[in-house]
């Protein structure tokens, strides 16, 4: 397969190329007057695809049985009352639903497991006869990058809610005020968008230049990153450089939300590109790794109580396989067992 100068795989180029094509589609479309398609039909289709797809996938997971209770335990199990257990142990080896909720909360909101991340290094170490020493460095960059990416994505998403409501709720205004508080400029600069783009670039560069991560990366890893980068950058351009008519945009988005879609005049093509990429992201979501978002809630190694020893877990499809009974074993070895003085179920006399 074609490998580029940096050894990037075709996955990288194909994804980049795909996103570039996706930029041009609405551009050309709007040029030939297909605003209705790109402003109304595609958004609705994307929305429908997103919801039906996500729900279908979630139902598939939910319908698949959980035969065994297999939490990954990262702390001391509940045991004898005097055995020391820290609060950390209780969350990471949860004995009850409340602690499971706590564990999931930490996982979903703080990426607890990713926080553990570290980097292994094998160093030459002449003091050891074998000449090498393994060192484990704390490595929080991925955790920071992922946290920044996800939270900023969330903030951006919430901020956009104002476009779909007549009057934006006070909490959306509040988020906006915080978001715009730090950089004094007119128009108000939202740091969320900037950090979103920066963290996406970080995740992308990591994928491109960390040889291990590059080796495992598929087109479906690069594609969403390029797509989100495209969305972020078009959004930023629209807001700070080539401003679109926000009143018209809101007319359109509100029309979509209230099911009275309209295409107002004078919205720049940039908006349609931005909207189209968002639509692609939504439509792509249910068929991709982005499903990790609902998926994390289903992770059986995290969302199960570690109480196996005192609360029975039932497997709905458990069946009885072929078994080997005690009597079968006794039948095989009765004579020798008798000689060895082992009690038998079916006693026999053996000749001396």
């Amino acid at each position, binding site marked *: 397969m074609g*490998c580029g100068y940096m*050894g990037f*795989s075709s*996955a990288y180029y194909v994804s980049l190329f795909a996103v570039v094509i996706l930029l041009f589609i609405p551009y050309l479309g709007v040029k030939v007057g297909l605003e209705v398609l790109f402003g109304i039909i595609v958004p609705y289709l994307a929305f429908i695809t997103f919801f039906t797809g996500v729900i279908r996938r979630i139902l598939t997971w939910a319908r*698949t049985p*959980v035969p065994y*209770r*297999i939490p*990954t*335990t*990262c702390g*001391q199990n509940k*045991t*004898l009352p*005097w*055995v020391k257990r820290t609060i950390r142990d209780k969350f990471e080896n949860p004995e009850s639903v409340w602690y499971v909720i706590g564990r999931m909360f930490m996982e979903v909101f703080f990426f607890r497991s*990713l926080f*553990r991340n570290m980097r292994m290094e*094998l160093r030459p170490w002449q*003091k*050891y006869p*074998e*000449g090498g020493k393994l060192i*484990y460095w704390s490595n929080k960059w*991925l955790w920071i990058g*992922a946290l920044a990416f996800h939270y900023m994505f969330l903030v951006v998403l919430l901020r956009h809610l104002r476009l779909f409501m007549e009057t934006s709720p006070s909490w959306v205004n509040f988020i906006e005020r915080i978001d715009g508080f730090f950089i004094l400029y007119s128009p108000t600069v939202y740091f969320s968008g900037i950090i979103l783009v920066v963290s996406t670039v970080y995740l992308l560069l990591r994928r491109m230049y*960390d*040889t*291990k991560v590059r*080796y*495992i990366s*598929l087109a479906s*890893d690069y594609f969403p990153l390029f797509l989100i980068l495209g969305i972020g950058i078009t959004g930023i351009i629209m807001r700070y450089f080539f401003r679109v008519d926000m009143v018209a945009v809101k007319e359109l988005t509100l029309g979509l939300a209230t099911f009275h879609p309209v295409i107002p005049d004078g919205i720049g093509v940039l908006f349609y590109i931005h909207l189209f990429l968002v639509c692609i992201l939504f439509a792509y979501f249910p068929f991709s790794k982005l*499903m990790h978002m609902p*998926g*994390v809630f*289903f*992770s*059986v*190694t995290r969302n199960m109580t570690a109480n*196996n*020893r*005192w609360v*029975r*877990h039932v*497997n709905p499809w*458990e069946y009885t*396989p*072929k*078994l*080997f*009974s*005690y009597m079968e*074993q006794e039948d*095989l*070895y009765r004579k*020798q*067992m008798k*000689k060895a003085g*082992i009690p038998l179920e079916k006693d026999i006399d053996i000749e001396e």
Partner: protein
Amino acid sequence: MASVPKPVELIQIESKPPDRPWMDNKAVLKEGTYCNAALPKWLEILDYPYPRRWSVTDDDWNLPENWKEIFLKAFEDRLNRFRSFRLFMDVCVRCGACADKCHYFIGGGDPKNMPVLRAELLRSIYRRYFTTAGKMFGRLAGARDLTEDVLKELFYYLYQCSECRRCSVFCPYGIDMAEMTILGRELLSSVGINIEWIMASVGSCYTTGSHIGAPPHAFKDTVDFFCDECEDITGIRPNPGFNRKGAEILFVAPSGDYFADPGTYNFMGYLLLFEYLGLDYTLSGYAAEGGNFGYFGSHEMGKRLNYKIYSEARRLGVKWILGGECGHMWRVINQYMDTWNGPADFLEEPVSPITGTKFENSAATKMVHICEFTADLIKHGKLHLDKSRNDHIIPTFHDSCNPARAFGFFEEPRYIIQNVCNNFYEMPRDTIREQTFCCGSGSGLNADENLELRMRGGLPRANAVRYVHEKYGVNHLSCICAVDRAVFPALMEYWVPGVDVTGVHEMVANALVFPGETERKTDLRLRPLKEFESEETDED
């Protein structure tokens, strides 16, 4: 057997992946890093499909004609039966957090041993045959055809995973390679691909009683021998019950503990402790194996072997079950036993006959870990212990994978160790407890022909032992797992010569002071105790 390179050579690890995409790099099955194919006789005993003679080095593995169909059908079946499997196929984002957490990757550098990529070997097939995107876009969607080469690759790497779950600790979605490895090995079994080391052990466990193939009378004979040994060393002769009906407790140990040193010393440790307590217990020649070798590669086979324990407890009419020091055994007892073969409503909630402690945490399984049992005894001051008898031992403690990450059993063994010896040192933080490293030979991979892989996989553990060996003079690696006790001696000899391996209850028995015992000059291994060391030298 392939010769293993010297440590100084083996530690030169190239971990930079090749430039070509991984799907283009056909797996090279390197001698010394795979296990031999299973002989047909075991498959016949166990009713496994497609028993036949084949060899890993053969070009033609002699697969059933419609192997692909069988394999994919088995795949679909697992997707429908295990939420874990389906979810783990769907949600990985390939962030790479797991990559350098696997001991086989750390010690071997083969990029397909990064858990994420090992899982991708399966996911690529999942996408190709079970997802729309994969069917439509093929390779672009990370999908690939199932071919014989792919099957061989799966075999190679699914038997380079010891199901230790370390990756699942670090995965932001808790994706568990162990789960996928077990299921992946089930898929391989469905087309007749199994390894000899596992199948021989399973076949022996199934009929004769234990993985070493010792039938009941041979087991009893071995135990009698241990009793002689105990008597010689301590003047006390243990008197264990054997298939004895009406005993209060059924004791089940991993057979590794009555098979070879140093496990045998641990078994003597159990016997002496029980004798000290006057415990009303019995061993069984039917439930003679705690270690569950079936579970390494099949849920069903795990259940078939595990069945014997409850079944025997019922037949003998005991009140509850006590289990020895063993890793996978305790994963099974903790996370599967009740679901597979319970409810154990014919047993009573375990109560220590010595201290009266109710083991409420095992109210359902009715099975108590010997370390909880002993820790409780020590806590209640029921054992007269002379720590100094272990002064020649400077131990560190290895958390075995399964008690660590599928149970959370950290404090009890440490509590015991600290009460039976004076010099205990922990290995570095990143290598113990839930972050512990595998011995390198777990889940059925401790075959002799697999030695290079085992030494590579054991590097992270051994390197941490090296650290405490140099810094504190640690000379014993203690553990609560029979596989550990079986494989660590070779690993230590290779990477950290001068470090011995010991079970926890061997140290308990060393320290245990019996009323009316003969003067103890040696430990259970007939090594002189510290205060008699000089005397020994004089005699020499």
